[in-house]
C-alpha cells in the first residue's frame, strides 16, 4: 500500500455564445451634461464583474477614463433586450453592443467638439484622459466636460448611441449536421498532478497548470478571478460532486453544504494560470468567452493523472475513492 503519484494532460476548445435565435444583445450609451457616460443594458451581472468590464469597454471606445462611465443594467423598464448571461456570451455579445453604441455616441461628441473648435470632426482624437485634441496640434483642444455642456445647452445634440449584436440563426442541416454553432472559440491545455492513496482511494490534486487562450484579457485581474475559480470548480466536478450519490437510488442526495461534497480550502491544488491572447475577429477588442471553458480541462486531466498514478480508468464521474478502490480490486483479480 502506497501513495502513488501521476500526472495527466487535457486540451480543449470552447464555443462563445449560443446558436439560438441569433443570440442578440442590445446596449444604449448616452452622455450626462458634464460628460460622464451612462451605459444602459438589461444584461445580468452574476458576480463575475460584467458591470466593470462593460464600463472599461465603453471608456476605451469613447476615449475617456473608466471612472467616467456608469453602467445601469438588469432593469427591463430602462435597459434594451439581452438574451441573458450564459453560454460564455456576456462579455462578447454585450461588449460588441456597447462598442457599437459608444462609437455612435463618440461620433456625435466629436462633431460637437469640431463645431466648438471650428475644425473637421475627422481631424480630432481623444487623449483617453477626458480631452479632445486636434491631431498634430494638441495645444488646440477642448475637454469632454465642455463638449457635453455645449451639446446639452447650446448645440442641441444628444451625445448618445445604440448598439446591437445579432448573428444569423444557423439551423443545423438535418442529414449532415452542417451548422455554425458559435462565433469564436477559446482554448485551454491543463496538466494536473495527483497523489492517489491506493489503500483508501483518496485523490489529492497537487498542482494544476492551466494555459488558457481567451482572445484578449480585457481586465487581467478579473480574468484571473474567473479562471482560478473555474479551475477549482473543475477539480470539484472531477472528484467530489453528485446530487445522486447512490444513483439509481435517489435517496441521500445532499441538501446542504455539509452533505453535498465539494473541496474545502485545504483540498485546493496549487493553481497556475497562464493566459495567451489571440484576438478573435468578432470579439470586443478581440475577447472570447472563457467563462465556462475554464472549468472543463481539469476534469479529464485529473482522470488521466489518476490512471497514470494507479493504472485504473475511472470513466464515470465523480472519481470517488469507492470507484478507485473497486477498480483496483478488479484489476488485482
Amino acid at each position: 500500500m502506497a501513495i502513488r503519484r501521476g500526472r495527466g494532460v487535457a486540451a480543449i476548445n470552447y464555443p462563445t455564445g449560443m446558436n439560438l435565435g441569433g443570440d442578440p444583445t442590445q446596449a444604449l450609451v448616452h452622455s450626462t451634461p458634464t460628460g460622464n457616460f451612462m451605459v444602459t443594458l438589461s444584461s445580468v451581472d452574476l458576480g463575475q464583474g460584467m458591470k466593470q468590464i462593460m464600463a472599461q469597454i465603453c471608456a476605451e471606445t469613447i476615449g475617456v477614463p473608466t471612472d467616467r462611465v456608469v453602467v445601469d443594467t438588469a432593469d427591463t423598464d430602462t435597459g434594451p433586450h439581452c438574451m441573458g448571461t450564459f453560454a460564455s456570451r456576456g462579455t462578447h455579445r454585450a461588449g460588441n453592443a456597447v462598442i457599437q453604441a459608444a462609437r455612435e455616441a463618440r461620433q456625435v461628441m466629436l462633431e460637437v467638439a469640431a463645431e466648438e473648435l471650428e475644425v473637421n470632426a475627422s481631424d480630432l482624437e481623444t487623449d483617453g484622459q477626458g480631452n479632445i485634441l486636434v491631431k498634430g496640434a494638441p495645444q488646440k483642444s477642448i475637454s469632454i466636460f465642455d463638449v457635453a455642456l455645449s451639446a446639452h445647452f447650446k448645440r442641441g445634440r444628444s451625445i448618445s448611441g445604440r448598439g446591437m449584436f445579432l448573428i444569423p440563426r444557423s439551423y443545423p442541416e438535418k442529414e449532415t449536421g452542417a451548422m455554425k454553432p458559435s462565433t469564436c472559440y477559446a482554448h485551454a491545455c491543463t496538466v494536473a498532478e495527483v497523489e492517489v492513496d491506493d489503500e483508501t482511494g483518496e485523490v489529492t490534486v497537487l498542482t494544476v497548470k492551466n494555459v488558457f487562450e481567451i482572445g484578449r484579457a480585457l481586465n487581467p485581474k478579473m480574468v484571473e478571478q474567473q479562471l482560478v475559480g473555474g479551475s477549482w470548480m473543475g477539480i470539484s466536478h472531477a472528484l467530489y460532486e453528485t446530487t445522486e450519490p447512490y444513483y439509481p437510488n435517489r435517496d441521500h442526495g445532499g441538501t446542504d453544504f455539509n452533505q453535498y461534497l465539494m473541496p474545502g480550502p485545504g483540498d485546493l491544488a496549487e493553481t497556475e494560470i497562464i493566459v495567451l491572447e489571440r484576438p478573435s475577429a468578432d470579439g470586443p477588442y478581440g475577447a472570447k468567452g472563457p467563462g465556462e471553458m475554464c472549468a472543463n480541462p481539469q476534469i479529464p486531466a485529473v482522470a488521466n493523472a489518476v490512471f497514470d498514478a494507479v493504472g485504473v480508468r475511472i470513466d464515470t464521474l465523480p472519481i470517488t475513492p469507492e470507484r478507485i478502490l473497486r477498480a483496483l480490486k478488479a484489476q488485482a483479480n
Partner: protein
Amino acid sequence: MELRKNYFADVRKDDLHEIGQPRPRSDSPGHVTGKTAYFADRNFPGMLHLKMVRSPHHHARIRSIDTSEAERHPGVVRVLTAKDVPHNVYTILILIQIGPEDETVLADGKVRWKGEAVVAVLAETERAAQEAAAKVKVDYEVLPAVFDMEEALKPGAPLVNEYHGQNYYLYDSGECRKVRFGDVEAGFAGADHVLEQSYQSSPIEHAPTETTGCVVAPEGNDRFTCYTNTQAMFFTLDNASIILQMPGSKLHFVGGTVGGGFGGKVDVIVEPIAILGAKLTGRPVSFIYSREEEMQISSPRAAEKVVIKDGVMKDGRIVARKVTGYTDAGAYSRHSPYGAQKGAGHYPGPYTIPNVWIDTYCVYTNRTPSSAMRGFGVTIGDFALEVQMDKLARLIGMDPLEFRFINAYRDGDMKAHRQPTEGAALIECMQEASRAANWPVAEKYMAMSSYRKGA
C-alpha cells in the same frame, strides 16, 4: 497569473488605454462590506411567503387534491393549484420556436419527478406557509418510473412525458441531432486500431452562494415589479407574460448583482407563480428556494453518457471518430434539447479528423429535470474526449501530449459540422503547457503553429 504576450503578438495591438488594464472592480467594495443589494434585500410591508407542496413520488397520477385544511391554517392567505395558472403548460424556449410546451407550472393530473411542484401556499410567514403546505392532502396513484436513459429508450418503457409521446426529444433530424462527415466505417476499416469506450457522469449542483428566488411587489397601477436573480431578464419576463397571459407591459423586472448563477438561474420557475400570487392577493410575495430546494429541486447538470469509437493509425493520426451522446433531460425539456444539439456541434473536439459520425440524444426520464450549467453540452463531452485521447495515445505507445499535436486543428481545417477553423490556438496552449509543466515534447511539435499560409 501570467500573460504570455510573445504568442500571437503579430496579430494583436497592445496600445489600448482602458482595455488590458487591471482596474479594480467598482462593485468589490460593496460586496466585501455587505452593502451590495441583492433581490432578497427587498422587504415590503404585508409581504407574503410562498412555499411549494412537492411530489414525494417519481411518477404518479394525481387522483385528488384537498387543500381545505391548509386554507384554514392560521396565517394562510391563498392556496394555488393548476387551475389558477392561466397558461399552465409551457416550455421556456417557445419564444424562439422550440417546442412543444411540455411542463406544468403546477402539476395537473400527474407528477413526473420527485420534487415536482403541485400546490403553492401563500402565508403571512414562512413558517405558516411551511406548516400549511404539510396539510395539503394529495392522493397519488404511483406509476412505474424510469431512471436510466437506456431503459427509457427501450420499447415498453414507462412514458415519462405525454407532450412528447416518446422518451426522447424529436428533432427535425429525427430521434437525435446528427453530424455526418466523410465515411466513418471506411475510416474504421482502414485503421490500425479501433477503440470503443463508454463514459458517464452524475448530475451535479450549481451550488451558487445565493439560492434561486424573487420578490414581487404590486405597484398599484396594475403593474408588478419582480426583483429577481434570474440570469436572463427578458427571457424570464416574456415567459412569465405567456404563462400568466398578462401583457409584458404590466411586468417590470429588476435584477442586479446575482450571487452566482453557473446556469442554474436560466429556467423560469419562481417568477411566474410568485407574480400570480401577488396578482391574486394584491400583496407582495417572496418565493426563495431553501438550500435543500436549490440542491435537489432546481435543475442540475444533466447526467450524460458518451460512447466514443475511434480508428487510429500507428503514426498517431485519428482517421475516424463516432460519438453517441445521451443527455438525461429528466422529466421536462427546459434547455436540454439545445444542450444535446450543442454537443453535436462540439464533437469531435478540437481535432481534425477526416471521418466523423455524431448522434446526440436528449432523453426523458423520471429524474429531476436538468438544464443549463457552466459548460452546457460540452463539459462531459470534453471529459470523455480527453480521457479517450489519453487511452488512444497509450494504445499506440505515444506520448499523450505529442499525440494531441498530431491531431490538433489548425486555421482553415474543415470541422465535421462544415465550418472552417478560424482563430485556432490549441497548439500554442499545448506548447506553453509543455514548458510550464516541464513535459517535454519533440522539437517539431514546439515548432508547429495554428497558422496556415493562406488560411
